[in-house]
C-alpha cells in the first residue's frame, strides 16, 4: 500500500488538499480500469465473459464520473473550463483552447487565483437527495 498520491509531504498539506489529491488518484485509477476492461474485451472470445467485463466497465464509468464531478465542484476554474469542453459537439481542441482562455481571463479580471478557491465547494446537489 502506498501513499504516493501526495507529491508534497502529507503532513504539510491541508485536509482539503489531501482529499482533493485522493480523489485525483481515484480518478486516475478508474480511468486505468476503464482502459484495461476495453483491452480485455477486445481480446476475449467468450461472449458471456465479455458481458461481465462490459458490466464491470460500466461501474468504472460511474466511479470515474462521480470522482470527476466531485473534483469539478471543488475547483471552480476546472469546472468552468470543463463546461466549455464536456458534452459539446465540434472540435474538442478548439473548445478546449477557447474555454481555457475565457476561464483564465475571467479569473484574472477579478483578481482571483487560478487554482483552488475558498468556497465550501457545495455547488448543485441534485442526484444526491434521498
Amino acid at each position, binding site marked *: 500500500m502506498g501513499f504516493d498520491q501526495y507529491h508534497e509531504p502529507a503532513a504539510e498539506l491541508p485536509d482539503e488538499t489531501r482529499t482533493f489529491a485522493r480523489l485525483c488518484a481515484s480518478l486516475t485509477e478508474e480511468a486505468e480500469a476503464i482502459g484495461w476492461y476495453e483491452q480485455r474485451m477486445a481480446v476475449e472470445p467468450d461472449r458471456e465473459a465479455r458481458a461481465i467485463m462490459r458490466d464491470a466497465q460500466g461501474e468504472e464509468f460511474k466511479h470515474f464520473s462521480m470522482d470527476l464531478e466531485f473534483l469539478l465542484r471543488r475547483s471552480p476554474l476546472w469546472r468552468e473550463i470543463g463546461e466549455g469542453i464536456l458534452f459539446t459537439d465540434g472540435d474538442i481542441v478548439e473548445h478546449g483552447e477557447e474555454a481555457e482562455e475565457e476561464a483564465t481571463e475571467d479569473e484574472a479580471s477579478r*483578481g482571483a487565483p487560478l487554482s483552488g478557491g475558498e468556497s465550501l465547494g457545495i*455547488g448543485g446537489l441534485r442526484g444526491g437527495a434521498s
Partner: protein
Amino acid sequence: MSHLLREYAPITEAGWGLLDSDARERLTPALAARKLVDFAGPRGWSYSATNLGRTELVSDAPDGIEATRRRVLPIVEARAPFSVARSELADADRGAEDVDLGELDDAAQRIAVAENAAVFHGWDGAGIAGIAEATTHDPIPLGEDCERYPRHVAMAVDALRGVGIDGPYGLALGPDVHTRVLETSQHGGYPLLEHLREILGGPLVWAPGVEGAVVVSVGGGHFLFDSGEDLSIGYASHDADAVQLYLEESLSFRIATPEAAVALTP
C-alpha cells in the same frame, strides 16, 4: 487575497478546515432547493447579473434611432454573520473534539432557509419569484391527514403530466410535513415515504423554509439557480475574545417553466 479576507483572521489553517467542514456538514442536508433545481456556476464574486435574453424599449432615443435596453436579473448577495470564541478555536488546535460552533450552525441554518424560501416562495426585494407562487396550477390543500397525502401528490403529478411536463418529479417537504410523513405508516405498515417516492419517481427532500410542500419536475430546464460566489466563510473583524465571521453567497434564481410545479399548501 479574495474579498473574503480570510488571511486577516486570527485562525490557523486547521481552524479554517474545521469551520469549513462544519459549515459544509450543516448546510448540505438543509439546502433543499439545490437538490431539485438546475444549478449553474459558481461564476465568481464579480459576476453581477444573469442574462435574461430580453430587452425593453428605451423611450427617449435620439431621432432616427431605435434603442432597447437589455434586461438582466441582478445577483443578490446574502450574508449570515456569526462569531466564534477564540478560546474555542485555540482548543480545536489542541485537538478538542467538542468545539462550540453553535453560532456557525445557526448561521448555516439561516442562510439555507433563506435560499430555500427564495427559490420556493420568492424574495420580492431581491427580484426573485418563487416556484410555489409562480406556478400556473391551482394549489392543492394538504391538510393534516397523512393518509391522504399520496392522493394529493398523485393529483399534483397528474396535473404536471396533463400539461406535458415530464418526470421524474421531486417533492420539497416543509419541516412539519416532513416529520408527519416520516412518522406515518399506511395500512399494512408500508412507510408513507416509500409510497410517495414511488408516485414521484424522484427525490423527497427535507426543505426548511418551505411552507407545506411543492411538487416539481426534476427533468431539468425548468428552474434555474445561478450561483455567483458559492457559499463561503469570510472574515469581518475580531477582538481579544471572538472572531466575527460570516457565511456568504451570491445568487439569482429564475423560472423558465412556471407550469412545472404544483404547490401543496399546509
